[in-house]
């Protein structure tokens, strides 16, 4: 008995089953690629977003420490924070599967 021949027979027996579609694999890879490139493209914006958030908090703290805490300004500070967050949250379309 030849081991190589028996192993090749096993392989031949597996060939009867139809293969999964290559198109589905291709599109899954395209979606992955688009997701990666979107993450890469949004990295500088995420950095700016973090810097702006820190600068905003530092500014608000310094103003409050100089002028005393004005609780009426708190909702305005929250709104400003949300605005900064949204400003840098771009959705960059790179692929249409």
């Amino acid at each position, binding site marked *: *008995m030849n*081991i*190589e021949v*028996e*192993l*090749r*027979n*096993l*392989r031949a*027996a*597996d*060939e009867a*089953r139809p*293969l*999964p579609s*290559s198109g*589905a*694999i*291709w599109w*899954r*890879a395209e979606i*992955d*690629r688009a997701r*990666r490139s979107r993450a890469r493209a949004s990295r500088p914006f995420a950095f700016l977003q973090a810097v702006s958030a820190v600068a905003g908090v530092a500014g608000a703290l310094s103003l409050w420490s100089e002028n005393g805490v004005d609780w009426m300004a708190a909702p305005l500070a929250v709104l400003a924070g949300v605005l900064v967050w949204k400003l840098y949250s771009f959705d960059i379309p790179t692929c249409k599967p």
Partner: protein
Amino acid sequence: MTDFLSAPYAAAAERSQPMTREEFEAFYRETAPGLRSYIRRITGNHDDDLLHDAYVRLLGVRTSHLEPRQVRSYLYRIATTILCDRWRRVRRHRAWQAETAYLAGDHQPDLPESGFARCFGQLELRERMMLWLAHVEGLEHKEIAGVMALRSASVRVLLFRARRRLERILRENGWEQA
């Protein structure tokens, strides 16, 4: 050892391009039957998810600087890595009995097995991989070393032992002149 992530390959990869759809179709037609059979005989099941994952990861890297044979070895390396990762995860969660049986070789096969396939399934995971890559896919020792992250000299010895072990199992199961 053929290390596709080593410095010369990485530098060439920078200038390289990913596969086009046409190139991928041709490569898939040529390699998918073999890779699926490899996965089937190593895991004991038809695992098309693993096949998908391997090709998706391959498409995520630039390969135009590699020879077709190297791309094929790289594909087997990716599949082997995914397979080993899953195996380790399964080992960590021993309580998950069905999954443990999936790779341990004592699985319930999803197709009726021939006597030879049953004997082959009794080998260790690494032995099965090595014998399959050497005798079915026709990979050289250097390529097997690259796929399995081993030294070329170790492959020769381990392959010899795997072959001897398979012959012993076959003899014990009544196969003559194994």
